[in-house]
């Protein structure tokens, strides 16, 4: 394998792991055949090492950990909200730009379409609907790795689920004189189905989906520790 590529791929590993095994892995890569398969194997293994670090080779006191300890409200309260806001902004921008590019003559972008236009809008939809769940999983992952009590991740999960469940996007071209089109986001519980408001039901679904992997992980940990 090319020396530079080998060095780059080894750099993907966490620093404690790299300090111990980096040189010998790099030597192995430089002496052997490269290729897409080898590169993919290394990328996957490095990612695995970040998520499930080898015991004894964890980052002892990183900047990230110190943030979790010093300002958990920022890590679990503020950062997820900012991330969600960024994801919604991207989703709305895709909706707005797609509306202007593919549907310039319509008063709303919510009309049946197909082909490339449909694909473009589906990317926005995917970001919009998956963002609360992905952010929720990230909260659980960080809390799990830092061995924090469930209270701190809950600070992030609950508002994220409520926002994700109640968020609504409205688009109207006639409201703006220039005719460019106007997209607004609002939050509403919506109509009730069987006594439960629609938005609350969606929030509960998001909460369940995000909390479940964390709970399963905690349960497994408890079982593996107990004799």
């Amino acid at each position, binding site marked *: 394998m090319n020396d530079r590529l080998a060095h780059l791929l080894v750099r993907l590993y966490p620093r404690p792991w790299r300090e111990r095994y980096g040189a*010998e*892995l790099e030597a*192995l890569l430089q002496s052997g055949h490269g290729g897409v398969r080898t590169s993919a*194997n290394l*990328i996957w293994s490095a990612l695995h090492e970040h998520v499930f670090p*080898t015991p004894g080779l964890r980052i002892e006191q990183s900047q990230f950990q110190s943030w979790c300890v010093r300002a958990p409200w920022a890590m679990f309260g503020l950062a997820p909200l900012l991330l969600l806001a960024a994801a919604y902004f991207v989703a709305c921008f895709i909706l707005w730009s797609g509306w202007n590019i593919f549907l310039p003559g319509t008063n709303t972008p919510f009309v049946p379409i197909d082909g490339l236009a449909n694909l473009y809008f589906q990317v926005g939809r995917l970001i919009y609907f998956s963002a609360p769940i992905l952010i929720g999983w990230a909260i659980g992952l960080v809390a799990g790795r830092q061995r924090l009590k469930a209270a701190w991740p809950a600070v992030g999960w609950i508002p994220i689920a409520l926002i994700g469940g109640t968020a609504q996007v409205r688009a109207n071209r006639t409201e703006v004189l220039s005719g460019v089109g106007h997209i607004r986001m609002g939050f509403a519980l919506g109509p009730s189905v069987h006594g439960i408001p629609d938005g609350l039901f969606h929030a509960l679904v998001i909460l369940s989906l995000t909390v479940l992997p964390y709970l399963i992980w905690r349960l497994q940990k408890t079982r593996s520790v107990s004799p």
Partner: protein
Amino acid sequence: MRSTRNVVAAKYDPEIGHYSDPPLLVLASLASGPKHGHAMIEDIAGICGTRLGPGTLYGAIARLEQQGWIEPLPAEERRQPYRITAEGARILRAKLTTLRQFTKAGLRRLEALCI
């Protein structure tokens, strides 16, 4: 160095697949003597047809070393040989014994099936 590429190709049956338990394969490879990474990959390919990727191999080496089941020897130029420890040999024996019992039981049941 002897290449096992052809051996692997001859033994590989896509319907059956390869046996793949990287830590066990590394322990089994080191049971025949100390080896460095490249030699382990070749040896494992010769034993069971599984060609471990370098990332998978070093993932297994790191975990086995942290568990105390293998240990590094003095480096040879840039290559780092490893050897199995007494604890590693005990674990390997226990795992292989379990596998042998499982294999025996499975084969007995297959013989009784008479298809």
